[in-house]
């Protein structure tokens, strides 16, 4: 009995060791028939999973055709803040495709995993696609929500995730703030020309607008997908503030008879950037393929797939006019027009003790 147990134990430990060894093995190995197999990890934010699923297949085919290597891309999704933290804590992503530049800035500053000027490594500020913030409402728009000002109506409930953890929620918040400023100061032109005093007065109004929005929020989810679920599955709220791509996806998934998309006249240009995590890519020997992976996002296939998944492609000329037609005309303002930089916006609004925190403090 004793002997048998020892044997079992011996085999078990041997098996564990071998599993551990093969499991820890690096990201490239020879597969059958001498084709080199490569693995990439793409750490992304919440509502990109469907897009990257299809994009990864496209890239794998492209890589097989050009280099005769098999590539398997693993994806990880969640609220942008959580994802950035995971990378900082050692999730060895070869590439990161997050919701906003600030989260990648933080990784670069605190861990030196990638250079501080990461945003200059790829065209168009490393943003291969963009999006904006729109409204998703119940079918027939029973509460008549057409533009930002309608969010102030009494008796409606608004769903938006927590800006502390969700990149999309930060875009929602800033889009609403910008819209309020534009209303006060007479459009984007007015914001540019405003004197500091005028701007300060308008900021005060904008803050009141944001406060009235968050008073109507019954639940703060940690990421954009969670908020979509609250709105569509749990049937909470009258309007969901969300990414354009997420709104269209929710519309498609729900079969089009439950919700509809409402595009406001003015919204923010949201540019989710991409970057190679140099240190991890170096470690895995995947620098070349990681770069090629992100470059593929700018290729005609990449841009078409982005458009298919309702991201606004950055090279509209690569996309057919019918495909472009689904993106509604909307005046888009840029974050830097109003706040200068993400770091500034983050500090004023979302850091601890910032305006978002003050909204929830009892008066």
């Amino acid at each position, binding site marked *: 009995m004793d002997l048998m147990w020892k044997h079992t134990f011996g085999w078990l430990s041997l098996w564990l060791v071998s599993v551990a060894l093969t499991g820890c093995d690096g990201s490239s190995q020879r597969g059958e028939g001498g084709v080199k197999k490569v693995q990439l990890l793409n750490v992304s934010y919440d509502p990109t999973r469907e897009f990257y699923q299809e994009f990864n297949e496209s890239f794998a085919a492209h890589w097989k055709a050009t280099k005769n290597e098999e590539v398997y891309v693993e994806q990880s999704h969640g609220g942008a803040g*959580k994802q950035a*933290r995971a990378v900082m804590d050692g999730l060895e992503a070869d590439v990161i495709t997050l919701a906003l530049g600030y989260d990648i800035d933080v990784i670069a500053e605190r861990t030196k995993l990638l250079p501080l000027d990461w945003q200059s490594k790829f065209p168009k500020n490393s943003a291969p696609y963009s999006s904006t913030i729109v409204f998703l409402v119940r079918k027939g728009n029973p509460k008549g929500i057409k533009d930002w000002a309608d969010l102030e109506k009494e008796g409606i409930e608004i769903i938006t995730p927590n800006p502390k953890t969700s990149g999309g929620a930060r875009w929602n918040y800033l889009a609403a703030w910008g819209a309020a400023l534009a209303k006060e100061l007479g459009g984007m032109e007015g914001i540019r020309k405003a004197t500091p005093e005028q701007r300060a007065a308008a900021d005060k109004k904008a803050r009141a607008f944001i406060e009235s929005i968050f008073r109507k929020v*019954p*639940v*703060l989810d940690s990421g954009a997908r969670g908020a979509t679920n609250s709105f569509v599955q749990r049937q909470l709220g009258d309007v969901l503030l969300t990414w354009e791509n997420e709104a269209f996806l929710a519309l498609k998934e729900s079969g089009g008879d439950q919700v509809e998309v409402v595009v406001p006249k003015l919204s923010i240009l949201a540019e989710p950037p991409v970057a190679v995590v140099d240190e991890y890519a170096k470690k895995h020997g995947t620098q070349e393929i990681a770069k090629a992976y992100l470059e593929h996002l700018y290729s005609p296939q990449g841009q078409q797939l982005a458009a298919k998944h309702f991201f606004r492609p950055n090279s509209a000329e690569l996309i057919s006019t019918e495909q472009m037609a689904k993106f509604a005309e909307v005046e888009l303002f840029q974050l830097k027009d109003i706040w200068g930089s993400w770091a500034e916006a983050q500090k004023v609004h979302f850091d601890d003790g910032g305006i978002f925190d003050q909204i929830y403090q009892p008066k």
Partner: protein
Amino acid sequence: MELTLHVSLGEGSCAKQPMSRKRSYSVLPGFGLTMGYTLTYLSLIVLIPLAALIVRAASMSLEQFWAAAFNPRVMASYRITFGTSLVAALVNSVFGFIVAWSLVRYRFVGRKLLDALIDLPFAIPTAVSGIALTAIYDRNGILGHTLFQWGIKSALSPLGICIALTFISLPFVVRTLQPALEEMDGESEEAAMCLGASRWETFRRVIFPALFPSLLTGFALAFARSLGEYGSVVFISGNLPMKTEITSLLIITKFEQHDHLGATAIAIVMLVASFAILMSINGLQWYLAKKFRG
């Protein structure tokens, strides 16, 4: 299961057999070996990770720690967490008692099945509990629909948090009480009856005091379990700062904001508070057990 075993062993051995200190009676390998194993194991699994938490916080100044751990938003989350946990533990102390009583004292069809069901909140992932509870208590849920019409917000409110915590902590009270109930032989009850006590008096003066230490343990375990719950609560709670944000969620939010130190400071407060509460309840239980039996 482990818990049941632990509790019944603890109760039983204290109550029945006088502690034997003679070496020859020991069934397990010698004291040195078991104690060494116990210390190593506890250190690896419990003490070292907790120490790491404190080491991490040591890099903060006292002001920083104070600002991170006791600002109004965090204080509100403590109130919500401890308040709802207390409610859940109290509710379970009453209804868990009744459940344990019925399961031990009566024989009925389906008793075994019911008994097995008690463990479900232990076994299923908390996210599953969250989804299940949301399906029922949400505004469009089967029960929530009616409750919301009456103006009772059974989800997205502190009440929702209480519901989730009551659900997940029920087994702790029931499983702690069961062995103690089974241990009661009924003789003292009969004696009380024979001596002319009414049913209520028998319960109040004979049965309840004997069960009270176990009930207190069950209460403490349910309370402690509720303090740490995260998975099921975030589904049913609105997660709004100052209103329905529990401390575990706040810790995770801090982490996602890259504020590791802030998260650590809150975690330490929770650690110390939980430890203090468990210690005082254990002390009280020990005192009562001694008083009752001695």
